[in-house]
């Protein structure tokens, strides 16, 4: 029933967003029909069925508003529409469209409420509905939180189905053949006599019709595209160097801007002397901008060189200058009741069960450092300011907010700011930030009529990355009778969400759900379990890093769980299975055991296996990492991943994304940290922050749990379990328990 209600709700929203007025939820703002961004711009004779499909005599365009950061969502969104519209992906143009409130994300609500994402109770659904309404009111078009698939899964197929049925109605009117006798395939309506009426020729007539609504969606067994391997729409261009990223754009009269910003992130420039830079070849202008200077030149390398030649004096950092003081600030937060953000779980009585008199009480402390996002394409944006129009070419995860910021800087109404969202060379959360867009706008405003491409040097990108939250955890638990009985975990991190909301000019109401995400919702039925989140006062500014809070809290929780399992003398997989609190979790762990042929944590001499199971973004994901102890160090040989993600839209892209998530997590857990000295990030380029390279990459075996779980996204959930599973495997192989990332500080890897 819950599922039906969800579909009904989303079905309605499509209608309201596109064509019909509304009667939803009894909330005034939610009743308003959002503007259809295609209607204003649509050429005469074009049929705009809803904000996702545009057909005219020239062709069929599908709008894929979620930003493609490499995760393949442009293809995914197109495939969902194409499945019901009966077109092939090579017949259509796919564009990200203009940013619009109509593309508000229906799925981000799931992660914003204090219920397990796997909790389908009516209370949880009701809370999600309320938050969803807020997001809709804000017109929050956001790509993030692994929400693109759940946001799109119903509404884009619905969009395709509505368009198809309306085209059939137009064909029926034109041919006199009843709709029931019409079929559709490959972008055309098929008449019983074999004639084909291409959609493009029906568009003008269809535009005059009231769109057909309430079209039932096809059951999965009828799918042509979904669930089967697909060729991504971008793969050919990405394999031949033809795909243009934002940083590749060129246009007539364009100049390049490079910035030199205060390396004390967020602090201002005190004064500068640009004499040396101004005399350099190709340099057109040196301009002060927020927190630094911009050099405008005719070539990127010349702009970079000149920016380095500017003599700058910087104000001090608004946070502790040195790393030791950051750690001290984190540690000092524990036990400070004023900093207690929320008690997320409190089952039984952890304090009573782990008292000083219990000889089986275990304690441990863990650390997770700041980490840069460092997507391989550095930040870049092109902005052109004209008298009554501003154009912005950038890849951005929250394009409407970027648009608002540009409008405020150039002093033009938002409606005159046209943002052309680009494919990005990775993001991992980095393109939720705005500096590249706002700085480009600051420069372009001072040079009207000139397209300004602002490119961050890699070193500037690292210095202003807004890294992952820094955090620590303290565990206190107990075992008895060969079983884990009590697990208490206090987690203290800065709030990356609050830091990020602050840069959008918004306060974050209530507790930060990310501090303990992946820990409090561990799917174990423990007699005594308490998870408390402490919010560390803001230090260096931080932001969402692939899998956000669960990347730290998941590491803390599953590392400590493993210590308790070991203390109990139990098997790491068997004990987790015993504790699993629901059937789906048991099935997932059983699948994992079968995949790796589990025979304990030490299957052979010198080989260790570690288990971890973390639920993030509504997706339970369990992993086994297998390492071999060699004389030169630890080698990761295999990773098995079992994930409960619901229907898989494209099994090839699914496997690729899950493997990538594991590589991301392991590479950073082994090798990476951002530390501050003198207020500056010490790691300035990939020589000091490399993630994983191919020679360290294990074989990664991936399976989705079959069955009927709610559909979810998989960009982030494979990340959190990998680091603790690796630490647990190293313990199994060596007896050395590593409680701090990066692990390479404590052990060598080969």
């Amino acid at each position, binding site marked *: 029933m819950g599922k039906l209600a969800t579909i009904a709700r989303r079905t309605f929203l499509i209608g309201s967003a596109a064509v019909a007025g509304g009667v939803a939820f009894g909330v005034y703002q939610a009743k308003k029909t959002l503007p259809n961004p295609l209607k204003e711009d649509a050429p005469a004779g074009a049929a705009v069925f809803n904000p996702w499909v545009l057909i005219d005599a020239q062709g069929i365009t599908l709008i894929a508003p979620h930003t493609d950061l490499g995760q393949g969502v442009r293809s995914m969104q197109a495939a969902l529409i194409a499945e019901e519209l009966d077109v092939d992906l090579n017949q259509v143009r796919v564009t990200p469209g203009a940013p619009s409130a109509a593309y508000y994300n229906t799925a981000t609500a799931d992660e914003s409420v204090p219920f397990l994402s796997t909790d389908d109770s009516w209370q949880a659904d009701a809370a999600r509905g309320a938050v969803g309404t807020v997001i809709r009111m804000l017109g929050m078009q956001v790509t993030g939180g692994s929400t693109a698939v759940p946001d799109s899964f119903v509404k884009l197929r619905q969009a395709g189905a509505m368009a198809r049925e309306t085209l059939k109605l137009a064909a029926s009117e034109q041919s006199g053949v009843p709709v029931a006798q019409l079929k559709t395939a490959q972008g055309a309506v098929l008449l019983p006599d074999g004639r084909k009426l291409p959609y493009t020729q029906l568009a003008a007539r269809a535009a005059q019709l009231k769109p057909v609504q309430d079209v039932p969606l096809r059951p999965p067994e009828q799918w042509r595209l979904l669930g089967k391997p697909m060729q991504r729409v971008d793969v*050919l261009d990405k*394999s031949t160097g*033809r795909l243009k*990223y934002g*940083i590749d754009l060129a246009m007539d009269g364009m100049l390049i801007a490079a910035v030199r910003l205060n390396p004390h992130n967020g602090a201002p420039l005190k004064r500068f002397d640009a004499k040396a830079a101004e005399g350099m070849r190709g340099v057109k202008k040196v301009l002060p901008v927020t927190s630094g200077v911009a050099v405008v030149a005719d*070539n990127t390398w010349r702009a970079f060189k000149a920016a380095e030649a500017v003599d700058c004096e910087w104000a001090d950092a608004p946070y502790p200058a040195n790393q030791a003081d950051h750690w001290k600030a984190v540690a000092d937060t524990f036990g400070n009741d004023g900093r207690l953000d929320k008690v997320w779980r409190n089952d039984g009585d952890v304090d009573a069960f782990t008292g000083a008199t219990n000889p089986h009480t275990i304690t441990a402390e863990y650390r997770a450092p700041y980490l840069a996002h460092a997507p391989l394409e*550095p930040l870049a944006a092109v902005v052109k300011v004209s008298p009554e129009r501003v154009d912005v070419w950038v890849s951005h995860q929250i394009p409407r907010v970027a648009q608002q910021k540009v409008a405020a800087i150039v002093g033009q109404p938002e409606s005159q700011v046209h943002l052309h969202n680009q494919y990005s060379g990775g993001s991992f959360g980095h393109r939720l930030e705005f500096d590249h867009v706002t700085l480009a706008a600051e420069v372009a405003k001072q040079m009207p009529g000139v397209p300004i491409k602002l490119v961050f040097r890699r070193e500037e990108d690292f210095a202003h990355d807004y890294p992952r939250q820094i955090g620590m955890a303290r565990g206190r638990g107990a075992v008895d009778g060969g079983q884990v009985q009590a697990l208490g975990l206090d987690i203290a991190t800065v709030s990356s969400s609050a830091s990020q909301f602050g840069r959008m000019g918004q306060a974050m109401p209530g507790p930060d759900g990310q501090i303990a995400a992946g820990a409090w919702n561990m799917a174990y039925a423990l007699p005594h379990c308490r998870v408390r989140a402490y919010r560390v006062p803001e230090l260096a500014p931080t932001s969402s890093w692939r899998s956000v809070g669960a990347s730290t809290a998941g590491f803390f929780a599953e590392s400590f769980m493993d210590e308790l399992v070991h203390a109990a003398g139990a098997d790491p997989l068997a004990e987790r299975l015993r504790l699993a609190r629901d059937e789906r979790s048991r099935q997932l762990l059983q699948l994992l055991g079968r995949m790796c042929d589990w025979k304990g944590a030490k299957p052979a001499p010198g080989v260790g296996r570690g288990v971890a199971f973390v639920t993030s973004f509504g997706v339970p994901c369990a992993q086994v990492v297998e390492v071999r102890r060699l004389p030169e160090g630890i080698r990761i040989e295999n990773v098995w991943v079992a994930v409960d993600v619901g229907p898989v839209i494209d099994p090839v892209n699914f496997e690729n994304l899950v493997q*990538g*998530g594991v590589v991301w997590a392991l590479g950073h857990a082994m090798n990476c940290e951002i530390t501050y000295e003198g207020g500056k990030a010490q790691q300035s380029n990939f020589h000091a922050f490399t993630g994983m390279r191919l020679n360290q990459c294990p074989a990664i075996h991936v399976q989705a749990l079959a069955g009927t779980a709610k559909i979810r996204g998989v960009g982030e959930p494979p990340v959190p379990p990998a680091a603790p599973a690796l630490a647990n495997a190293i313990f199994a192989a060596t007896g050395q328990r590593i409680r701090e990332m990066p692990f390479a500080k404590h052990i060598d890897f080969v």
Partner: protein
Amino acid sequence: MKLIVNGRPHEVDVEPEMPLLWVLRDELGITGPKYGCGIAFCGACTVHIDGAPVRSCAMPVGQVEGEVTTIEGLGQPEALHAVQKAWVDLQVAQCGYCQSGQIMTAASLLQTTPSPTDEEIDNALAANLCRCGTYPRIRAAVKQAAKNLKGA
């Protein structure tokens, strides 16, 4: 200054110390080679000079001797190089930003080592960073390309 890129001669008026990468991207509009680090550590800028892989971000254009080949010159959609075909068939790319460099490094590896071992693949391709983590598919695609080249 004269430069031959993808078989075509070009005349450029730039400082000899300007890295080849920026001559290709900003002066000639050839954007397949990417800027990732500027210090020859990520490999996104990899091109061939007379068939050998070179990090164009750290190669002053004044020191270039020989013909430059970029990903655009390796093969195009209608005539893919065997390595590119394997990359498409196995759908290696996620964001794709590193893949020009990965493909150029793989193509030159297979030129000199037609049947690379796992270790040889690891050693050659470890020079190219992929932040999306497509390494399992990169390994498989190099092997597939080697097989295709032998069959050809």
